[in-house]
């Protein structure tokens, strides 16, 4: 197995050399770049998934909540959509450092001590605001008859949301949700500023040691591959999940 991998690696490097790339540099940093891709993907998938969970109550509170809840949800979205992700990340990462004694007291310091966790935390809060806004748009575009019919056949409001309203709202918001995933892949590069070794972090490290611009081109290529893959996968997903809608168009 090991020899096979080695052979593959050598073959890959030889190919890259043929393309005129810096083979020595790639031999030294290539695997770290793969690690970086993995960290980026973990960061993004975790944040987007947790953000999706958080966006559900936020969107419902916005539509159904009374004066207080809907306004609180609006303020939340307004803050996270109106300020730069970089500022939010600094606020959490350095802010947590400032409140270290208090965080230790309530037993949360172990979480905020790690830059990766801080990044996931911030990105989750950020993407939840955007996803909630997309979901709200979906919910509000549904005709009121959907809720009335669900209630008429005896579903509780909670059941109606779970089985009737939200599935349709998500289907409507599928394309913007895909865009949000792409935006998160790109924004995740910000994590490198708070010492997370994601793809961008690894790239900056490799550049600061080698001063070879080529590493930025590798990173560009890897980001483009990720973004394009997501875009393609999402197209297929959308066509499949919304195939009942294409007939009516």
């Amino acid at each position, binding site marked *: 197995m090991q020899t096979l991998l080695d052979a593959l690696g050598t073959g890959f490097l030889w190919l890259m050399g043929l393309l005129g790339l810096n083979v020595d540099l790639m031999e030294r940093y290539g695997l770290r770049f793969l690690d970086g891709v993995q960290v980026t993907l973990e960061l993004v998938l975790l944040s987007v998934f947790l953000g999706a969970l958080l966006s559900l109550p936020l969107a419902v509170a916005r539509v159904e909540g009374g004066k207080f809840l809907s306004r609180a949800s609006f303020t939340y979205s*307004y*803050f996270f959509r*109106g*300020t*730069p*992700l*970089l*500022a*939010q990340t*600094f*606020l959490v990462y*350095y*802010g947590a*450092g*400032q*409140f270290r004694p208090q965080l230790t007291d309530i037993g949360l310091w172990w979480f905020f001590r790690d830059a990766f966790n801080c990044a996931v935390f911030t990105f989750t809060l950020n993407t939840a605001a955007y996803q909630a806004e997309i979901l709200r748009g979906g919910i509000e575009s549904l005709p009121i008859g959907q809720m009335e019919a669900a209630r008429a056949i005896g579903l509780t409001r909670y059941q109606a949301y779970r089985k009737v309203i939200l599935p349709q709202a998500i289907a409507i918001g599928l394309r913007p949700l895909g865009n949000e995933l*792409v935006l998160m*892949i*790109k*924004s*995740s*590069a*910000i994590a*490198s*500023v708070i010492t997370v070794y994601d793809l*961008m972090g690894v*790239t*900056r490290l490799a*550049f600061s040691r080698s001063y070879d*611009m080529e590493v*930025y*081109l590798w*990173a*560009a290529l890897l*980001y*483009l591959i990720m*973004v*394009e893959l997501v875009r393609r996968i999402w197209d297929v997903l959308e066509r499949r999940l919304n195939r009942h809608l294409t007939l009516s168009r």
Partner: protein
Amino acid sequence: MLELLGLLSFGPDGWGDEIAQGALLTIELALTTLPVGIAIGLAVALAKDSHSPLLRGLGNFYTTIFRGLPELLTLFIVYYGGQMLFTRVAGYFFEDAHIEVNQFVAGVVALGLVLGAFSSEVLLAAIRSVPRGQKEAASALGLPRWRVFRLVTFPQLWRVALPGLSNNWMVLLKDTSLVSVIAISDLMRETAIAVGVTKQPFFFYLVACLIYLVFSAASSAVFVHLEARASRGFKRVGGH
């Protein structure tokens, strides 16, 4: 609490003036980038709308690249890449040449490239929304091409493009914070300096966030006004 607010005072003890200067630079950067980005966007949109397959291909290629790359990466490539490129070119003429790229210019170029990619999509949709007959009718009236654009096509295109462009502007405003990473003294960097000295990260970053919020709110007020003005010729059902 009062102590914290005291940190925001203007003058030698407070950070108010430094942060205000940073905020001013942020606005300056965004306003300088806007025309650059829109000009690129318009050129790319026209390329994507052209008859030549080569131009269309180039336009789509451009959009795919700069919409897909992280803004931070684009910024680094422009900044360090520009530095190396110019140094190498200068090296042909002078020995030991070393050229520093101005950070502000690098910021404008990088953010302009990104804004160009995003606004080209908005502008393309807007260009396509103006019926062909409008242009034909205008030139049948004998208007020269430039005036056809200025008097007939543009006002209609503008109305359709405004909501999208307003979005692009909001994104640009937030993206400017990234330039602090290449040491431009914008709002974000001045805040970081204040944090370094006072050890009050939570307070200062919160203040920075609030300033960005004020910018966003002010811009959306401007855009509401612009949109109302651009669509004054359109009456909607139940509209005003």
